[in-house]
């Protein structure tokens, strides 16, 4: 089939997700990217793979670009020769491709022709000609660690000075480096240097059995463990032609909405705290702790890690769980409504939230921003309504969007999403009660060598994508994980411009992006 009147023949990938794949040449890839841009589609992810020794004809490298279009997820693969592997620079069409293209070179040695050529994940801790994702590199070698001299863009002018922050930050957060160029208190420019928590996840996948690597996927970003585990399992189930029992899918949705609520509660507290209302932090962290404790009791893990497994879920709900969850939903909803009222009425808090850290809708669109940050800037993307897989096709999720794109919008959106997730949880519980089946797991059949599958799930922060290719005898040939943070980080550089330095922590928290998820 063809999309967007382009000369590219797609085939639908097997499985629940509406996903399509096509091989392209350079001209076709560029033309397709331009057509996606023109028709209001979006760029989702870009990654590379080493195809050498696969077969003598196509042996070389490949770059894979995933686009979100009206029909679903369209994946375009561009094969490249083993000598001098290069592909057209897509960052002019989609600026979000910039860091991914640089990542691709750092890990595989395949280069975009043009655009920013600075390293991204590679700091000074392995040589420039060492490409860990190549098949003839085992990735085990360790090199001496050095401090890196990175070519930050300098802002010149009277009174401009720099504030370097990180990699170790002042709070309890992940490491990253922020280089502020400021005049007085005002931020002229922010440049991020990330990659500090790069721990070789993609290489590690290739050493794990396909049937067990959902655990690694669930640790790409700990706060999104459910979303990543589901995306991984969706990909694994697609390529192994496995359909989990309906009960398992309802339970997965229950887990995903619980993860959303847990993170939103924590963020709402932290956002109050960053605007000097520590009352908010104490209250919301108390609610979050109640929430986590029940998750721990019912699913054996406070963050529900390893609760989703290929073929279904690890365990069913224990007896009496429905009543406990329902009671907790009511209690949390009652308290969050009180707290929302307090936040809304608090002049000092609203003064800090309103118009701070604005990301306008046009920019959000240009930067391919999705998820929570996108929805707060009029980007009405939510996989739960757009390409709903079971059970979301029966849930009729009401997505919230705002157009102000400021901290206040991202706060309001979190409140609305908490209430919506609580509503969905109640429906899911009803469905689980009606569903008398006790089956929550179907064994995953052996996957044929070379089988390929995609998983795409709307996590609490945004969409997460897992692209999985099976190797021989139950191994993994290539697994790429993509967190929406990777695309959203550059938006923070824009949102902070013109704001004062002391508002940066608040703006940063309102996005609350994953470092580990982008560093891999």
């Amino acid at each position, binding site marked *: 089939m063809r999309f967007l009147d382009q000369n590219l023949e797609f085939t639908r990938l097997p499985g629940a997700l509406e996903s399509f794949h096509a091989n392209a040449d350079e001209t076709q890839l560029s033309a397709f990217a331009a057509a996606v841009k023109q028709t209001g589609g979006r760029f989702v992810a870009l990654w590379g793979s080493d195809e050498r020794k696969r077969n003598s004809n196509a042996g070389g490298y490949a770059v894979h670009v995933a686009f979100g279009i009206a029909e679903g997820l369209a994946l375009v693969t561009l094969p490249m020769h083993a000598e001098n592997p290069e592909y057209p620079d897509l960052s002019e069409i989609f600026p979000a491709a910039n860091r991914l293209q640089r990542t691709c070179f750092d890990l595989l040695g395949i280069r975009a022709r043009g655009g920013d050529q600075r390293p991204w994940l590679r700091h000074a801790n392995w040589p420039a000609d060492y490409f860990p994702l190549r098949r003839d590199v085992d990735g*085990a070698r*360790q090199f001496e*660690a050095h401090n890196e001299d990175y070519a930050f863009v300098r802002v010149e002018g009277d009174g401009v000075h720099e504030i370097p922050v990180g990699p170790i930050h002042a709070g309890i957060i992940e*490491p990253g480096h922020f280089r502020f160029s400021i005049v007085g208190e005002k931020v002229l420019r922010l440049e991020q240097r990330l990659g500090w928590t790069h721990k*070789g996840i993609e290489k590690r996948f290739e050493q794990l059995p396909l049937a067990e690597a959902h655990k690694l996927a669930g640790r790409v970003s700990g706060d999104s463990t459910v979303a990543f585990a589901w995306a991984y399992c969706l990909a694994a189930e697609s390529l192994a032609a496995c359909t989990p029992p309906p009960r398992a899918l309802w339970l997965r949705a229950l887990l995903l909405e619980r993860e959303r609520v847990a993170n939103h509660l924590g963020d709402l507290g932290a956002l109050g705290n960053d605007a000097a209302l520590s009352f908010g932090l104490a209250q919301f*962290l108390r609610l979050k702790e109640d929430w986590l404790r029940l998750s721990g009791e019912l699913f054996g893990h*406070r963050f529900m890690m390893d609760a989703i497994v290929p073929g279904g879920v690890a365990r069913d709900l224990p007896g009496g769980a429905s009543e406990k969850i329902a009671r907790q939903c009511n209690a949390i909803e009652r308290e969050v409504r009180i707290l929302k009222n307090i936040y809304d009425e608090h002049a000092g808090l609203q003064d800090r939230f309103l118009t701070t850290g604005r990301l306008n809708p046009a920019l959000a669109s240009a930067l391919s921003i999705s998820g929570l940050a996108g929805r707060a800037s009029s980007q009405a993307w939510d996989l739960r309504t757009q390409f709903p897989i079971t059970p979301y096709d029966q849930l009729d999720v009401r997505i919230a969007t705002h157009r102000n794109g400021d901290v206040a919008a991202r706060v309001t959106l979190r409140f609305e999403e908490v209430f919506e997730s609580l509503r969905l949880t109640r429906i899911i519980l009803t469905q689980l009660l009606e569903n008398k089946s006790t089956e929550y797991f179907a064994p995953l059949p052996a996957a044929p060598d070379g089988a390929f599958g995609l998983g795409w799930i709307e996590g609490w922060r945004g969409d997460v994508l897992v692209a999985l290719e099976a190797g021989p005898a139950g191994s993994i040939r290539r697994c790429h994980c993509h967190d929406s943070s990777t695309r959203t980080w550059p938006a923070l550089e824009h949102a902070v411009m013109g704001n004062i330095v002391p508002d940066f922590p608040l703006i940063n928290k309102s996005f609350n992006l994953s470092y*580990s998820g982008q560093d891999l």
Partner: protein
Amino acid sequence: MYQLLKQILVTGIKTEAPPVADDALRVTTQRLEQAMLKTLGRALVIRHIDAGSCNGCELEIHALGNPYYNLEALGIRFAASPRHADLLLVTGPVASNMVVALQRAYEATPAPKLVVAVGDCGCNTGNCAGNSGGIFGESYASRGKVANVIPVDVAVPGCPPTPLALMQGILTAISGK
């Protein structure tokens, strides 16, 4: 303001009893001198360092500040600089890209430089015993457990460790004998 005060009153005090120190968590023999303990009491200052974690451990370290665990009530608080810290709370595995930063933070910490390694990835125990770096292992990008890069006093296993386990680890590090 009325709503806010009412909410505080209705909520009441939620803080629970802290756990006791557990010497089984100790991996080295470093003990604080009795005299120092007397001076320090439990007024401990912690610098948290994420040396490459998946951010799961950070979620539980955050929880230490919630009203249930209320770590500050024990006189223990987090500082923004290693120069102000008595103890480094390090999550891992140690990413190669974080080695220099972690070493510099360790150097900047005044003696006695207590170090608590947090999580299965950072401490080579628990479910990942014998597997330095936990599920991430050791590679070009990961140096594995924290003890591979800086000396460690107490290791708190778990993926992630619960807030109670974390409190216990921290209290163990400052318990004398």
